[in-house]
C-alpha cells in the first residue's frame, strides 16, 4: 500500500514537473486553416518534435480579422507570442512600438533580399522574419491557346493582342479582365517602369500619375486590348475578381486570367486544366514582367510572454528545409538569396522572367503606394473600363487625389 502511494506521488510530481516545463507558444496567423494550410500542420509537428518542451497553439485569424483581434491584445499587454504580419502591419504595429527588434545577428537577415529588408525593418530595427514572395502574373490555359494555333504563353503586348484575336476568332473567350484586380495588375505592369522613377515617388506625391507618360500609355494599352477583342470591358469591369473570375478560369472556358500564384494549388486540382503561370505582358520587357508581392512574415510582439520560444520558432523557419515546406505548398519564392528553393510548380515562364531580372516588387505590398490608393485603383479602373472614352486624366487624377488624402 505504502509502495503504491509513493509511486503515485512520484508520478504526480513527475507530471507536475513536466507540465511546469512545458511552454505553450501562442501563434496567430492567417494561414494554417483547412482552406489554406500552408504546410503549417506538418511544420508544427516537426517543430514540436525538435522542441519537446514547446507546444504550439496556432490560432487561425483571417487577415481582415487580424486588424480587430490582435491590436487590443497588443495594447493590453497580452499579445500572442508570435503573430503573422505583412508590410502594413509592420509599419503600423512596429511604428507604434509594439513589435520586438529581432536583431541583425542572424544568417537569415544577412541573406534577406535588400528590397524585402526595406519592408521588414523600421528605424533600424528588424521587426519581422519574412516568409515568402508571391508571384502575380497571367494564368494561361495552354490547351485553349493551342486551339488558336499558339503554343507559348504571351509575354509581350503584341503577343497578347495576337493571341486574343486568334482566340476570339475561334469563339474562345480570351481573357478575364476585372477592374477590381486583373486590370490593376496589367496597368501596374505597364505603368511602373522598372528602370524609371521609384513607385515611392508617386506614393509620396513627389511625382504625379497624371503627368507620367507610362501610366498614360498603360491606360491607352488597355484600349488596344479591347480593340484586339481580348475582353468586353463593360461585361467584365465589375466582375468579382476573387470568386467569379478564378471560377471562370477553373471551368476551362477562358484562356487567360491575370491573378496571383496563390491560385496555383487550386487550379492544379482541376482535372484536364493544362495551364501555365506566366509574367504579365509588358511593354517594358520582351520576357514579360513578374510582379512580386512581399508576403507575410513572423513578428514577436514586445510583451510576448514566451519570447525565447518565439525566437526558436523563427529560427526553425529560417532553416531552408523547413521554409521550403511552406514555400512549396504556397507556390512562392524565397525572400532569401542563396537558398536552394525549388521554383513553384506550373510557373516556368514566370520564374524565367524573374531570373532574367524582369521583375518588380508590387508597390502595394511594400508600402511604396499607400494602402488607400489600392481601392482607388480598383474603383477608378472599373470606371475606366465602363467608359473607355473618357480621358486618362480623369482616372489618373483620382490616384493623385488619393495620395494627397493620405499625406
Amino acid at each position, binding site marked *: 500500500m505504502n509502495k503504491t502511494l509513493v509511486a503515485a506521488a512520484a508520478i504526480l510530481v513527475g507530471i507536475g514537473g513536466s507540465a511546469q516545463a512545458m511552454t505553450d507558444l501562442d501563434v496567430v496567423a492567417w494561414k494554417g486553416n483547412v482552406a489554406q494550410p500552408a504546410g503549417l500542420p506538418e511544420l508544427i509537428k516537426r517543430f514540436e518534435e525538435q522542441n519537446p518542451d514547446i507546444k504550439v497553439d496556432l490560432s487561425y485569424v483571417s487577415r*481582415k480579422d487580424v*486588424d*480587430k483581434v490582435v*491590436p487590443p491584445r*497588443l*495594447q493590453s499587454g497580452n499579445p500572442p507570442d508570435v503573430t503573422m504580419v505583412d508590410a*502594413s502591419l509592420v509599419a*503600423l*504595429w512596429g*511604428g*507604434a*512600438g*509594439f513589435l520586438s527588434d529581432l536583431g541583425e545577428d542572424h544568417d537569415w537577415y544577412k541573406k534577406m533580399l535588400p528590397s524585402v529588408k526595406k519592408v521588414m525593418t523600421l528605424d533600424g530595427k528588424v521587426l519581422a522574419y519574412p516568409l515568402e514572395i508571391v508571384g502575380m502574373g497571367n494564368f494561361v490555359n495552354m490547351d485553349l491557346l493551342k486551339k488558336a494555333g499558339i503554343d507559348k504563353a504571351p509575354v509581350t503586348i503584341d503577343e497578347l493582342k495576337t493571341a486574343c484575336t486568334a482566340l476570339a476568332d475561334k469563339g474562345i473567350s480570351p481573357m478575364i479582365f476585372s*477592374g*477590381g484586380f486583373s486590370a490593376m495588375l496589367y496597368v501596374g505592369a505597364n505603368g511602373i517602369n522598372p528602370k524609371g522613377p521609384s513607385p515611392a515617388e508617386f506614393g509620396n506625391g513627389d511625382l504625379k500619375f497624371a503627368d507620367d507618360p507610362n501610366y498614360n500609355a498603360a491606360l491607352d494599352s488597355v484600349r488596344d486590348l479591347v480593340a484586339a477583342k481580348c475582353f468586353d470591358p*463593360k*461585361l*467584365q*469591369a*465589375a*466582375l*468579382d475578381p476573387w*470568386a*467569379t473570375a478564378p471560377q*471562370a478560369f477553373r471551368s476551362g472556358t477562358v484562356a487567360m486570367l491575370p491573378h496571383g500564384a496563390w491560385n496555383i494549388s487550386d487550379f492544379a486540382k482541376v482535372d484536364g486544366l493544362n495551364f501555365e503561370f506566366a509574367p504579365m505582358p509588358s511593354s517594358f520587357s520582351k520576357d514579360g514582367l513578374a510582379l512580386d508581392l512581399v508576403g507575410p512574415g513572423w513578428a514577436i510582439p514586445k510583451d510576448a510572454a514566451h519570447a525565447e520560444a518565439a525566437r526558436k520558432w523563427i529560427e526553425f523557419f529560417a532553416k531552408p528545409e523547413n521554409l521550403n515546406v511552406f514555400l512549396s505548398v504556397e507556390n512562392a519564392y524565397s525572400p532569401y538569396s542563396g537558398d536552394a528553393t525549388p521554383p513553384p510548380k506550373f510557373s516556368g515562364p514566370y520564374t524565367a522572367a524573374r531570373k532574367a531580372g524582369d521583375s518588380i516588387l508590387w508597390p502595394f505590398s511594400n508600402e511604396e503606394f*499607400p*494602402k*488607400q490608393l489600392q*481601392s482607388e485603383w*480598383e*474603383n*477608378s479602373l*472599373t*470606371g475606366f473600363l*465602363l467608359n473607355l472614352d473618357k480621358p486618362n486624366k480623369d482616372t489618373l487624377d483620382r490616384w493623385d*487625389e488619393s495620395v494627397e*488624402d*493620405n499625406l
Partner: protein
Amino acid sequence: MRHRKTLYLFIIPALLVIGVFFVYPIILTFNMSFTRFQGIGKATQVGLKNYDRIFSRDRYLEAAWVTVFYTVIVVTAMNLSGLFFAAILHRLPMIRNFSRAALYTPSMISFVVVAYVWQFLYSPLNGGINVALTKLGLGAFTQNWLGDPNIAIFSVAFTQVWMFTGFTCAIYLAGFAGIPEEIGEAGRLEGASSWQRFRYLELPLLGPAITVAVMLTTIGTLKTFELPYILTKGGPDGATRMLSIEIINNLFGQYKFGFASALSILMLILVLFVAFIQNRVLRDRENTQ
C-alpha cells in the same frame, strides 16, 4: 409623489445601459473624429481637418447621396410590396398563415448567405437570371446586373426588398388584424368594391402600422452594409458605395479611425434627421386622419 420618485428609480438600469453602451461611445467617436488615429498608438489632434476633407471631396457626398437614394428605393418598394401582399392575404384567410411564414423566411436567412446566393444569380457569366432569361427566349433582357453602374443599385435594392418584404407584410397584417370587422361589413353593405374598401377604409386605419413599418425599414436601410458590401463592394466605381461601406473601408482597410469617426458622426446626424422628419410627418398624418 414619493411613489412617482420610486418609479424613476426603476429606469436607472436602462439609463445606465444606454449611457455606457450608446451615449459614451458616441461621445468617444465624436472626440476621435477630431484626431488622426490609426487604431493603435497615439492619436494626434487635427481639428476639423477630417470634416474638411469629407466636404471637399465629391466621393463622400456621393456616398451620402447613394445612401439616401438607396433608402428611398428600398423603403418605398419594401412597404408597397409588403402592403400589397398583406392586403391580399387579409382577404385570403385560408392561405394567410402559410404565406406569411413563406414570405418571412428570407428575412431569417443570414445576410451573407443571401448576398452570396444572389451574387451567383446576378453573375454575367452563366448567372442564373441571365441563363433563365435566355432559355425563356428573353435574351434581349439579359444585363450585367451588378456590373452596370446604372443597374447595380437597383439589383442590390431588389435583393434587400426580396429579403424583407415578409417583414413589412407581417407588420401590415398585424395592422389589418386590428381593424374591426364591422367596418369592412359596413363597406360591403354600402356596395364598396374591394379596392374602395382598401383605399377609403383600411388604408386610413393602417396609419400606425405604416408609421412603424416605414420608420423601422428606413432606419434599417440607412445602416445597410452587408448586402452591398458582399454583392458589389460598393462598386462598380462607387455606384453602390454607401456611407457604411466608406466607414468600414476607412476603419479596417486603411486604419483611418479618426476619419471614419467623422464619417460615422455625419451618418448618425443623417439617420437622426431623416428619422425625426419622417416620424413627424407620419404622426401628423395619423392625427389628421
